[in-house]
């Protein structure tokens, strides 16, 4: 049980050689050995999604994967999301629309959203909901998160129209919106 594995992990385009207890999860090794604490611990059960990272571009729960299994795989975490000093369009949209509240679910959601937009640059609302259904959020009610992913997708497609605000909320002075 106390045997140790030494492995060179490919994390955020960098090779990191780490020694860790063989039975430790990727989540533990990222947070403890690699000090990449942006990936969060939420339920150790694969239910909440806060530990989501990308493995070879696919969203996975780092609490349900052993670090020892990661030889030869590309791992991405929220720390690798910025492009130089520039926010990723998803980060920018989340900031602009207030889609991060307490922030604890945010890194995992960003990872799941990034994988979605990588595979599908123009997702529908339903596709976004399905892609993020494994990431629980207790603050936002999800609406702003869905809006932010839509906006980020639009930005990445080169569109610059912000989402219609009235679809989210209205003031009493605005005309009643019919359907």
């Amino acid at each position: 049980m106390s045997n140790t594995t030494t492995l060179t992990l490919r994390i955020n385009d960098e090779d990191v050689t780490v020694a860790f207890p063989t039975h430790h999860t990727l989540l533990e090794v990222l947070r403890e050995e690699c000090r990449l604490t942006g990936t969060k611990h939420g339920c150790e059960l694969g239910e909440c999604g806060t530990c989501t990272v990308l493995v070879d571009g696919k969203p996975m729960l780092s609490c349900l994967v052993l670090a020892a299994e990661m030889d030869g795989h590309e791992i991405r975490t929220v720390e690798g999301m910025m492009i130089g000093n520039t926010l990723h369009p998803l980060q920018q949209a989340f900031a602009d629309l207030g889609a991060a509240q307490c922030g604890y679910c945010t890194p995992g959601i960003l990872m799941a959203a990034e994988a979605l937009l990588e595979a599908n640059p123009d997702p529908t609302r339903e596709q976004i909901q399905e892609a993020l259904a494994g990431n629980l959020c207790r603050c936002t009610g999800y609406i702003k998160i869905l809006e932010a992913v839509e906006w980020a997708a639009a930005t990445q497609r080169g569109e610059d129209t912000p989402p219609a605000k009235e679809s989210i909320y209205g003031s009493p002075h605005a005309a009643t919106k019919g359907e």
Partner: protein
Amino acid sequence: MKRREAIDKLTGREAYIDDIAIAGVWWGCTVRSAVPRGRIRDIRFGAEIDWSEFVVVDHRDLPGPNQVAMIENDQPVLASDRVRHIHEAVLLLAHPDRDRLREARRAIHIEIDEEPAIFDYRVPPPADTVQHGGDNVFKRVRIDKGDVDAALVAADHVVEGVYETGAQEHVYLENQGMVGYVEDGVVTVKGSMQCPYYIHAALRHALARADNEVRVIQAATGGGFGGKEDYPSVLALHAALLALKAERPVKILYDRDEDMAATTKRHPARVRHRTGVTSQGRIVAQDIEVLLDGGAYVTLSPVVLSRGVIHASGPYHCDNVRVEGRAVLTNAVPFGAFRGFGAPQTIFACERHMDVIADELGMCPLGLRRKNLIQDGQSTSTGQVIRDGTDRIEILDRAVRDAEFHQREAADRAFNSTHPYLRRATGIATFYHGAGFTGAGETYLDSRAQVVGLATGEVEIRTANVEMGQGALTTFVKIVAEKLAVEPDRIRVAEVDTFHVPNSGPTVASRTSMIVGRLLERGCDALCATLGGDWTGDKFERELLRWHAEHPGQELIAEVRYEPPPGVEWDDERYEGSAYGTFAWATYAAHVEVDLRTFGVRLLDFVAVQDVGTVLDEVLAAGQVQGGVVQGVGWALMEECQFVDGAMANHNLTNYSIPSSDDVPPVRVVFYETPYAHGAQGAKGIGELPMDGAAPAIVNAVARATGARPAVVPLTPEVLMRVMGSA
């Protein structure tokens, strides 16, 4: 203005307590009771563990009284001779290795001689289960307005109903966590929390230390919702005790299982209504009984009951109201604060009952509400005269318009008559929520806040109110920036650290923006007064720099104290007077689809219209409403705490489901803004209001869609199946 800490949260840099590395830290854990009530006979330490590697703390290690300081000091920090609920903390362990710690916890056996316990709060306790006073009643509250009995006799109709609501788990995404350490003789705790000064008081009391010998620092907090109001006092004491004995920092992080099993939940409640109405639908008498399950210790039950009772009669005018409330002991894990604080329970009952009354009278539920909604000049059940200029009828009408209530009613009728198994309808709820502490609570709190003019020309805000996702940090900066007409980046917010910030009260009760925000505005005024004028913008900064030039090395601190608004008076004996400085008002509408194959309920649309006074930040405010509504959706339909012997059996996120992104409808939010003279910029409280309205709107919709009369939340498919009598 963007959320102040957004970039840190979006890049993974925000440091929650789990993320903060501390040199030499040991890990702490809690050994708990496995039985609901009994006398501790023996504690056995398994021989397979080398206990000399561990620090073990029990009740004998407490320097002061073995009590968690709260309303009544009845809860021990660590059980000494008896336990009153499953998961009650008995021992604490610390070790440098977390796996070894887990092994050790499994090797400890606490032997308890069981005693009779009580789990059903609705039945009178058998004599051998009485554990508090003579009858297990923690608190009684009574409101008496007019002559209810006479009015019931005179009424054309009397409509009765019994409504029950279940416990709810907070599911903040960040579990509870705290580190304790001793630094220069000061016992310090740092962690996830809503109320640093509650913890401060609890540490002082049980550790028998002076004010300046304990220190509480908030770390980034991943959601609270009330769950980090009272419980962190217990956790902080545990971390501090371990740190004192281990003579090194000790961190306790709950995993999800332990967090859900051992920490507080929303109080289960049963509410009975007996309502006298005229044939035209005028409510002439409300006779209401509120009963809360308090769990094994008093914690915050008396004040949760108080808020529940005051909100029980709804946003309606009635001359004859009687509300009798009780919170009682059971041997369940104690219940505690949860967003809404008693009001969601009683508002669910009231609003569901309104639809039942409309049914009985053959009236439209909208018309019944329009007829009875409180008007300016009329009074609430406590006799508080409402004169705030809010157009409550317009709020209702706006929700009806935006939800297309009437158009959809026709379309749904056609749909329902042809679809083999789907049934649709819209339901509404009208409600209110009192902002700030109940009664004289704010006066007792005696909150203080500081606005500090720094030598750099910047301004620093010092309060004990925390950012936990709701946007307090951003809102405070905005309030001060707008008051002084300076750029937000010229404003700093002091870390919430009891060594540096005054006690501005807890971050609860929808009070932060309204009350503490107002203190900050007054703090700005006080600062300017010191600077000799009503300065703003560049002029302000110049004057500030000039003051520092003239007073080198000095601090310019403007501190203000809470002052109750004029005319706010409360009689706590008779439960009469101004229960709250002000109320926020709302109507919510839910459009649902019930699947008669599965008895599942899907939300198609949701409209939330409210008047919360001036909206300080549209994005943050909408976030509060949408988040609160979805939390309400969960409580209404799926979040079921299943108790076995007073402990949650489904204490994990597999078997306790909260809504995911797939379950939410559009939540369309509309704000009316009638300013409140005593809130920051005219703001009223907003945080809790949205939790109140979703459940009754949804269950009313389900009732309209199916013709059944559900009276329970959570209305799980299994419960709806029973209600519909299809079995």
